[in-house]
């Protein structure tokens, strides 16, 4: 889902406009909206409300009765070192993937932007990883780093690094960071390229006449002008890393070794779907919803700012 967030870079206020002239019909607009609203209410809002409700409740072991327990589940979560670890780990994961994929995406975009004729060829060569499913991306990198068959451990051994992501938690984390970033570079590349191509050529020429070289121009003109794109991509990438990387973890490390790659979303799945701990899983869901809301709010807030300038 977060990939598609890019469509909505506009203010909620403007989204509310209608045409000046409209059709008159009492029933028709409701009929047109009915399928979308029905699905949203039944499969989005109702479950979300249920999550909020059961995060305040405890079910007895037989599921016969529930009791209101207030903030108990939340309190337990924040006292649970496993949860705090997962929170910090997710932050490290999100920031690493975001930084890695944005820096590479920007570098590729800056390079392609310099080329006049061959730029399109390189664009084609660099965009396709977007279409690779996260689960496939995970499996490909997992294979590349596999301790018996993989190429990487073979080369790493030669420089004195013993690689085994089945035992070493840090290495497992590096593995999922690489796999998640690999898939996202093409997305960042396309947005940075679009941003760079809209930098006015006259600015570049003026700076060149004043004697600044390509590198200086990049850092003093292009990069500052790209800051709206950069900020937008930062939010999108954090969102992607937090919520869309579940398949990478599930198909490769399964959260291990020793919880080293258990992200917040993976923990909700483990505790709720596999562990059937409804209360705790619901409380975790609610906390995640709050994170998405903050991200969405920041994104829209920033767009409103940008419109004013």
């Amino acid at each position, binding site marked *: 889902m977060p990939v598609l967030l890019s469509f909505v870079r506009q203010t909620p206020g403007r989204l509310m406009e209608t045409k000046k002239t*409209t059709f008159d019909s009492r029933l028709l607009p409701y009929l047109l909206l009915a399928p979308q609203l029905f699905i949203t209410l039944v499969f989005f809002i109702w479950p979300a409300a249920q999550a909020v409700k059961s995060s305040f409740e405890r079910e007895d072991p037989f599921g016969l009765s529930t009791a209101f327990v207030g903030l108990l589940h939340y309190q337990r979560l924040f006292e649970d070192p496993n949860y705090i670890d997962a929170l910090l780990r997710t932050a490290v994961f999100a920031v690493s993937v975001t930084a890695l994929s944005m820096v590479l995406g920007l570098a590729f975009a800056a390079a392609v932007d310099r080329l006049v004729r061959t730029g399109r060829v390189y664009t084609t060569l660099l965009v396709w990883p977007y279409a690779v499913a996260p*689960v496939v991306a995970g499996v490909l990198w997992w294979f590349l780093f596999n301790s018996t068959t993989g190429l990487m451990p073979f080369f790493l051994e030669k420089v004195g690094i013993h690689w085994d992501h089945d035992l070493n938690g840090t290495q497992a984390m590096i593995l999922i960071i690489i796999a998640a970033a690999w898939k996202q570079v093409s997305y960042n590349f396309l947005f940075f390229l679009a941003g760079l191509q809209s930098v006015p050529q006259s600015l570049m020429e003026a700076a060149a006449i004043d004697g600044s070289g390509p590198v200086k121009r990049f850092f003093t003109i292009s990069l500052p002008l790209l800051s709206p794109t950069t900020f937008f991509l930062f939010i999108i990438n954090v969102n992607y890393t937090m919520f869309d990387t579940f398949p990478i973890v599930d198909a490769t490390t399964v959260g291990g070794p020793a919880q080293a790659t258990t992200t917040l979303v993976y923990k909700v799945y483990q505790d709720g779907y596999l562990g059937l701990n409804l209360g705790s899983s619901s409380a975790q869901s609610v906390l995640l919803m709050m994170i998405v809301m903050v991200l969405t709010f920041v994104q829209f807030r920033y767009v409103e700012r940008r419109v004013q300038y």
Partner: protein
Amino acid sequence: MVENRPFLTFLTHAFLILGFAVVALPVYVAIIASTHDIATLMSGPVPLLPGSHLIENYSMILTSASAANGLPNYSHMALNSLIMAVAITVGKISISILSAFAIVYFRFPFRQLAFWIIFVTLMLPVEVRIMPTYKIVADLGMLNSWAGLTIPLIASATATFLFRQFFMTVPDEMLEAARVDGAGPMKFFRDILLPLSRTNIGALCVILFIYGWVQYLWPLLVTTDPGYYTLMMGMKRMVTVQDGVIQWQLVMAGSVLAMLPPILIVIFMQRLFIRGLTETEK
């Protein structure tokens, strides 16, 4: 380019070629590994040149291999993936374009409420409401069904907003002319808006097809019947072997086949793809 700097241009090319080599490495290795037998793969790092088992591996995966893991036939799973991707694409586009039409071309009580309900879907990805959504689908008896696999995924604020944005750019004169000619709202929608939206629908098709094709968590939750497994579920099953070795040559052949359709779509429909991805306010 502002000035001619041959050396920098050379460096740019070198950097991009190197970049492409790194980006393509895992896929190259997957293709190579899918042409070897398991003995070669297990005896050390994967070779860098193709082996002689290409036809054997691919025909095995397409006919019988997956059955060993209790999986349906690979082509059966590919068909499931296709059905799911197409159903999600068609479903999302249909309900979004209708909602956008209602929001832009009508004024009615509770319009604002309807708008916010749609908007809220942005903040509630499946990943944050795993258990309760599973429960409602189970209560409705939709586990292990095409309806359960696709319908909960087709609500889309983003597609609705994209159409809304586009409808706002359609000149008001079109609507006035249609009204003068006595066309009702649905006739206007079908004969004017729909044809005008062709490019947007095309761009969305590309993006949403990929979105549907790569779905993983949702099918994992709602299907236990192997008859509904998609390729992405099959991937997970093939690498989760309890005892014995992972049949890497088949896993890699399976990966290559699973990523081929969306990659081809992105490469051959690049213009629509980029438009769909980066379309913003105009």
